[in-house]
């Protein structure tokens, strides 16, 4: 009889020979890791925290490839989560080809995707959550959602976030915080919060007139006899990274001092013995914050979509990183004595869709929510010969598809596409349906603009975005990846100061250097300015793929990394 490890090696070896996604590989995945293996956990202490974050409205399973480039700068250089591929595996002692390697790195992605299948799905998450609640008792479990929950799918966009609110009400988190939620505009956010059956927390949002809190900052719970304070921290740079005109009365920021005051109040006046920050700051921001704000026991990080198999300890604070797109559920058991965490146990539970039985009620709800859109979502528009993905510091293969569509359909010389960290992946050979394209484009300001910019202006934009990613002080980082550029190549030195990172900008069509004084026709989308006119980006991308039918890798970009 084959051991598990041998089975897996067979799977990897056989993968290139398999066409499509037959039952053989699926059966193998089931043998490899079962629901019981995923849930297995030696319970500890009084309190169990379950964390989900950055689901990006993905109700059903998908593929998601972790980045192969994820550069850390300054103190974060080479520190997890800024490790990829084999370095990541080596650091955490993981085996190549294992389920962990599939879930946490981009190594052998296509082969492992065939062996292990899709990830996520809210019905699978519901199964895990229900199992932990049953095992531990509801009175010991806190389920917390780090936000970016209402945006990222066609159904979320069409229902203006409502499908996710309904599904999440069924999952019953104890609290959530937010970022992309705000891109439905202030009025809609308030409506959706009105439908929520749990608190929406954001200590760091103030109204622009009076600097007064807009939302509740903290909620208190008693779990396992421990009084727990959960503080919500929305994405601090929402009005900078996303359209401010949609939330004109709301001001954000990290608001470290207000947070410190709230932590003190929770401990000293409210008697909290455990303080949890449900954060959408981004991992590096939270790492710095943990070293400066006292009294936080656990930070549930989000926003930057990092996943780590172990928490990181900064001072007395544990940092948890749960990934994105419903790929993981974190479980953190805590023993609290005298207002301190004295012991903990942790597991990053992989949501391997083929290994987990869907939760019947959630599955039914998801099907109902998707039913009005099911036909359009499943329409196949083409297929891909290469792995399609977005996530990574620089152009992904799906970004190049979007850029190629912008260049062609808007007759532009240069195209720009935002370095969002959301959007599904596809292994080579897979059909492309409309739903996949929407996971990369479904948002409330999708208009494709066409403007003239000088070479100097382009350089300013690129330097600005590069500094948002590579500023050595995390408090100046916004947590997106580098803007994707088509039609123009460039070289970048992330360690250089702002204004000197981007070099050798070249117009790919001619091979000539980009002239600072010449005007170029530029197409792009997701402008944060109001009143942008143009077709929604998904239309252009869908038309482009329909025309080609088969995607073999668009040659529209060139990015070279240099180390100064």
């Amino acid at each position, binding site marked *: 009889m084959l051991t598990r490890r041998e089975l897996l090696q067979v799977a990897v070896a056989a993968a290139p020979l398999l066409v499509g996604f037959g039952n053989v590989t699926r059966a193998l995945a089931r043998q490899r890791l079962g629901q019981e293996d995923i849930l297995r956990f030696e319970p500890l202490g009084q309190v169990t925290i379950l964390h989900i974050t950055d689901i990006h409205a993905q109700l059903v399973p998908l593929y998601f490839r972790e980045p192969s480039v994820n550069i850390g700068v300054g103190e974060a250089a080479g520190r997890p989560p800024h490790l990829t591929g084999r370095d990541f595996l080596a650091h955490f002692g993981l085996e190549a080809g294992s389920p962990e390697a599939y879930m946490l790195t981009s190594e052998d992605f296509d082969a492992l995707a065939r062996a292990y299948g899709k990830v996520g799905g809210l019905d699978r998450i519901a199964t895990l959550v229900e199992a932990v609640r049953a095992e531990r008792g509801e009175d010991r479990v806190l389920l917390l959602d780090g936000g970016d929950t209402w945006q990222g799918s066609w159904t979320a966009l069409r229902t203006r976030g409502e499908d996710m609110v309904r599904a999440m009400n069924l999952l019953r988190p104890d609290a959530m915080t937010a970022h992309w939620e705000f891109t439905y505009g202030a009025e809609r956010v308030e409506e959706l*919060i009105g439908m929520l059956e749990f608190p929406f927390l954001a200590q760091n949002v103030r109204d622009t007139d009076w600097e007064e809190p807009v939302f509740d900052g903290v909620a208190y719970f008693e779990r396992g006899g421990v009084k727990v304070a959960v503080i919500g921290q929305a994405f601090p740079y929402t009005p900078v990274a996303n359209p401010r005109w949609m939330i004109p009365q709301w001001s954000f920021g990290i608001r470290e001092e207000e947070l410190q005051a709230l932590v003190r109040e929770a401990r000293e006046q409210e008697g909290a013995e455990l303080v949890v920050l449900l954060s959408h700051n981004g991992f590096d921001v939270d790492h710095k914050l943990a070293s400066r704000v006292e009294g936080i026991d656990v930070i549930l990080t989000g926003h930057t979509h990092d996943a780590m198999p172990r928490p990181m300890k900064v001072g007395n604070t544990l940092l948890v990183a749960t990934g994105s797109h419903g790929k993981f559920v974190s479980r953190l058991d805590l023993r609290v004595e005298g207002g301190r965490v004295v012991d903990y146990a942790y597991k990053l539970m992989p949501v391997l869709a083929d290994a987990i039985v869907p939760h019947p009620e959630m599955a039914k709800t998801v099907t109902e929510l998707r039913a009005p859109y099911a036909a359009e979502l499943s329409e196949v528009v083409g297929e891909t010969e290469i792995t399609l993905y977005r996530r990574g510091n620089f152009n992904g293969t799906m970004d190049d598809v979007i850029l190629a569509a912008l260049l062609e359909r808007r007759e532009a010389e240069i195209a720009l596409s935002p370095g969002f960290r959301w959007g599904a992946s596809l292994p080579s050979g897979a059909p492309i349906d409309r739903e996949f394209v929407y996971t990369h484009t479904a948002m409330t300001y999708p208009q494709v603009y066409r403007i003239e910019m000088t070479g100097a202006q382009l350089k300013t934009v690129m330097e600005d975005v590069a500094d948002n990613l590579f500023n050595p002080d995390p408090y*100046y980082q916004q*947590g997106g990846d580098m803007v994707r550029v088509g039609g123009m190549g460039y070289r970048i030195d992330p360690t250089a100061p702002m204004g000197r990172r981007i070099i050798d900008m070249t117009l790919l069509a001619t091979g000539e250097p980009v002239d600072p004084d010449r005007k170029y026709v530029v197409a792009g989308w997701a402008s944060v300015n109001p009143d942008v006119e143009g077709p929604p980006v998904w239309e252009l991308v869908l038309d482009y793929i329909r025309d080609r039918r088969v995607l073999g890798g668009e040659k529209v970009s060139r990015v070279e990394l240099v180390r100064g």
Partner: protein
Amino acid sequence: MQTRIGRRRLLFGTGGVVAGLGLAGLAGGSARADAAAVEAKIKEIVGDRTVQEGRITLDAPEIAENGNTVPVSVSVDSPMTADDHVQRVHVFADGNPRPDVCTFHFTPKNGEAWASTRIRLAKTQKVYALAEMSDGSVYLTSREVKVTIGGCGG
């Protein structure tokens, strides 16, 4: 669940404008100030006194949401007695057309040395706050405020 904005709107209507204190005009030549211009201004005020660190806190966002109206507040650790109080706090910016932004004047009757206003920042730059104490000592602090084009957040 309800947001808290409904209650606030009820109480305050759509809100007014926070009055700025002693805002110096931002008009002037088109030339940008720079660190040297700020240094010259500070030298002008300080003379041959020694500039110290500490006691003064400058609060400003790391990244401005809107460069046209950046909330900035200053506070100085001082008992604010007749013998020992803050007299003035000057605010400078090294990337605006003129380096001097505003001066807050205090007396012991203020009770505490704290002030808040909104300033316009033309681009990413350093904002400085200089406190002059009644005993003649001076304290300086600074903070970088990034004014970014925006977009592209993850």
